[in-house]
């Protein structure tokens, strides 16, 4: 490490405390997590383009991916807040199921779908609040608390709704449907909403007091408390944020697939979203993270699923490549990002 230049006493306060701007180097240094997530994604796409240029230079595959990718994006961004705050949430997918149930049941009963969606987001947020309170006020470890909550909510949905689905196809063509999952040209509207969500999350994380506090709390809770940050409140809010996002994701899922079904692939979605966060360059230990990186992480994981098949391998190889990419991405992040210890 370069030594700090000590100033001769005779020199007054006039000397600047600024280093020369290095432009591009500075930019790379500050955004290295997001950029390496982007790099992983670009390399992956290049490989796919080379393997099957016909499919990957066309637009069909992107239309297909962009239809369901937004669900993952909506889930992963708030999850990064929780991870950066030093906690974890494993209950967001079953929370999504529960919220969707609330949406589907009320919409079918004749509620205005906008009102039903609001209910779904409230249900999700309420579950997040309970997670947050259990972790911060009761003092339970978030890993086990949210794992338990995952089973609890999944069980509640299956026990309550049974195995009979609620079709939501009656919403197709309504203003509500068109607003959220309609089409803008060839682009699914939900992708636009996902980008809006990305912008909001980035603003919150990088430029808002809340994001700043989340980073401080995850970095060192003791220091944060000494400096007057309400650590329990900050963490609870992060859990509520994930919960509300689960509500939104649930409604999107219902609209995109046209059905509520209590038994959908909980585990797979959960692991894919978690992988997205870490491939996206957010480390596991808290204090730092990136929204843009998580966005590309979600893209990477989602494209692996489609890409492996389109590249000519059978679907049985999807998980293998998922694992391979996770390990390679983590190794790549590790290379340029030493962990700071206290």
């Amino acid at each position, binding site marked *: 490490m370069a030594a700090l230049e000590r100033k001769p006493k005779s020199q007054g306060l006039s000397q600047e405390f600024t280093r020369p701007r290095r432009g591009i180097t500075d930019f790379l240094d500050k955004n290295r997590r997001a950029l390496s997530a982007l790099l992983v994604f670009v390399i992956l796409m290049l490989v796919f383009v080379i393997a099957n240029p016909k499919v990957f230079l066309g637009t069909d595959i992107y239309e297909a991916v962009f239809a369901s990718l937004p669900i993952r994006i909506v889930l992963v961004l708030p999850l990064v807040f929780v991870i950066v705050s030093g906690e974890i949430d494993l209950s967001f997918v079953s929370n999504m199921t529960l919220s969707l149930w609330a949406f589907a049941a009320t919409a079918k009963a004749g509620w205005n779908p906008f009102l039903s969606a609001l209910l779904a987001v409230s249900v999700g947020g309420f579950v997040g609040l309970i997670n947050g309170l259990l972790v911060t006020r009761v003092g339970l470890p978030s890993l086990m608390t949210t794992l338990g909550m995952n089973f609890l909510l999944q069980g509640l949905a299956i026990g309550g709704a049974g195995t009979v689905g609620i079709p939501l196809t009656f919403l197709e063509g309504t203003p509500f449907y068109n607003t959220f999952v309609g089409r803008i040209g060839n682009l699914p509207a939900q992708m636009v909403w996902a980008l809006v969500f990305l912008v909001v999350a980035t603003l919150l994380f990088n*430029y808002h*007091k809340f994001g*700043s506090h989340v980073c401080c709390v995850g970095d060192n809770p*003791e220091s944060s408390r000494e400096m007057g940050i309400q650590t329990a409140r900050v963490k609870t809010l992060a859990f509520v944020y994930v919960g509300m996002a689960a509500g939104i994701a649930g409604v999107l899922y219902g609209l995109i697939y046209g059905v509520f079904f209590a038994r959908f692939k909980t585990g797979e979605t959960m692991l894919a979203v978690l992988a997205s966060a870490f491939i996206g360059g957010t480390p596991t230990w808290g204090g730092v993270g990136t929204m843009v990186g998580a966005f590309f992480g979600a893209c990477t994981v989602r494209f692996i699923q489609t890409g492996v098949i389109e590249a000519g391998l059978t679907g049985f190889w999807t998980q293998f490549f998922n694992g391979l990419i996770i390990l390679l991405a983590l190794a790549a992040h590790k290379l340029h990002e030493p962990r*700071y210890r206290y």
Partner: protein
Amino acid sequence: METKFLELKDTSKSFGKVSALDRVNFFIKGEPEIVALIGDNGAGKSTLIKIISGVHPPDSGEIHIQGEKVDHWSVAKARAVGIETVYQDRALVLQQTIARNIFMGRERTGVLGFVKGRSQLAEANRLMRTIGFTSKVFASDSVVAKLSGGERQGVAIARALYFQADLMILDEPTTALSLTESEKVFDFIRRAKESGTSCIFISHNIYHAYDVAERFVVLDRGKVVLETDRVHTTAEQLVKDMQEIARCNREGSA
């Protein structure tokens, strides 16, 4: 007579049967000054600064701020009159920028709670300059983890300045720091004083203390046994005095 910033009169404090402080008188001048608290382990240094910072209420005695007697002294009251404690663990968040560390918990916010990043950076740069932190490698948007131990202490000191501390309390600020790093910290303290902040610090190392402090208060078993200043003593004399105190102690207990 000039008004003293802080004055403790006949202050005593015991923990159970252990008397930590016994009728101690202590003051900080109205003008900025640097005072070193010296003494062996268990002499009562930490108790004294904890009383000043409001962590421990004294059992008896009076606390005067700017000549006015204050009651129900507390951390909140101490902060309100401009007494800031720089914690031994420095209360920093290492993976965050210098600016974020300085403003954590008291961010400058504008519309809807968004942080005024530029204003914070500019203010952080100003504060770091004020304490004499210059660098070609680091700026206020640098991550604290990249700084050395002394520089990190500097960030904590700059933060105390931001809180417009009139009196900064440092509990062994140079523990675990190398000589050059300690020098840096003392430089920061001198700069803080130049900008109008008094400083009390605890030190085991008399030579260190002599280097930076103007006044020395030696505590021994809960009592102030020696008060002197740079004009009236030398580092060597101070060491001799300390040895004398230690000798008296041994004979006293023998």
